[in-house]
């Protein structure tokens, strides 16, 4: 049978894959996708816990409200993040790469 543990495993796997991608990938866009993956994994954990913690015959709506806010905030973050990445990309086209990397170290 499918237990709570199964859901936690899936979400842990998703979270860890996202984390690995954030650390390993160099492309800012892919890194950002991996960050979204981490957030979604957290959401799955939240929903699973809320479903397996049924109270008064209903799943905990408060936890699901947090998921709702997470999704909203993540969408806003994506918008801001992509705008910043885009601005950097525009700047990069016009100047040499090594001066953009002036912050290394």
């Amino acid at each position: 049978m499918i237990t709570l543990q199964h859901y936690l495993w899936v979400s842990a796997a998703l979270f860890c894959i996202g984390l690995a991608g954030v650390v390993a990938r160099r492309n800012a866009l892919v890194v950002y996708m991996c960050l979204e993956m981490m957030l979604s994994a957290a959401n799955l954990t939240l929903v699973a816990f809320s479903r397996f913690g049924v109270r008064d015959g209903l799943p905990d709506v408060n936890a699901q409200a947090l998921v709702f806010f997470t999704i909203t905030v993540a969408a806003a973050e994506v918008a801001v993040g992509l705008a910043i990445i885009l601005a950097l990309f525009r700047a990069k086209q016009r100047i040499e790469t090594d001066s953009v990397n002036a912050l290394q170290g």
Partner: protein
Amino acid sequence: MPVLLFYLFAALVVGFALAVVLARNPVTSALCLAVSFVGLAALFLSLDAYFIGTLQVLVYAGAVMVLFLFIIMLMDVKAEESSARSRGAQAAGFALAVLLLIEVVSISSALKRSGDTLGQHPISAPLAAKLRQQSGRPLLKGLEADLAKGELPDAKLMGEALFGRHVFHLQLVGLLLVVATVGVVALSRKDGGSLSS
């Protein structure tokens, strides 16, 4: 949800998530992420979170992924080339992920409810309806009736929570969206001047 379907969607989520990380081409990554999120939405549905599942499809698999693809196309991003430095980072990322995965998986079995099945936590709409009537809380119109019929009016319940209890958070999120909008406009306006560092 049948066991087989769960495994199918779980494999979909994890497999395509792996593909996001492994794919060289960002377009592939974005498309794989969309598929992975659709699988995730199915898992949400299997947890009786219909509203969240729908949201996942609409916002993530829909809007956010379109935004990603749009930016990728706009920037005409090439596939990533591998370098000595990135190989080190890849090893570090892999090690970190595996360690965390082992830890979380092993710890999750120590949870009290970890072995419970969905059947052990049944959703009982009539019970909820009775309890709500007894507590005399302000009710959303029709919510009562739905519950009494034995249905789970998930979207209505969420709506009640968001616009009832969580209205303060909703205001704050609104403020956040204003700031984000202002930021996006300011950051992506076309600049006339030249760049100085």
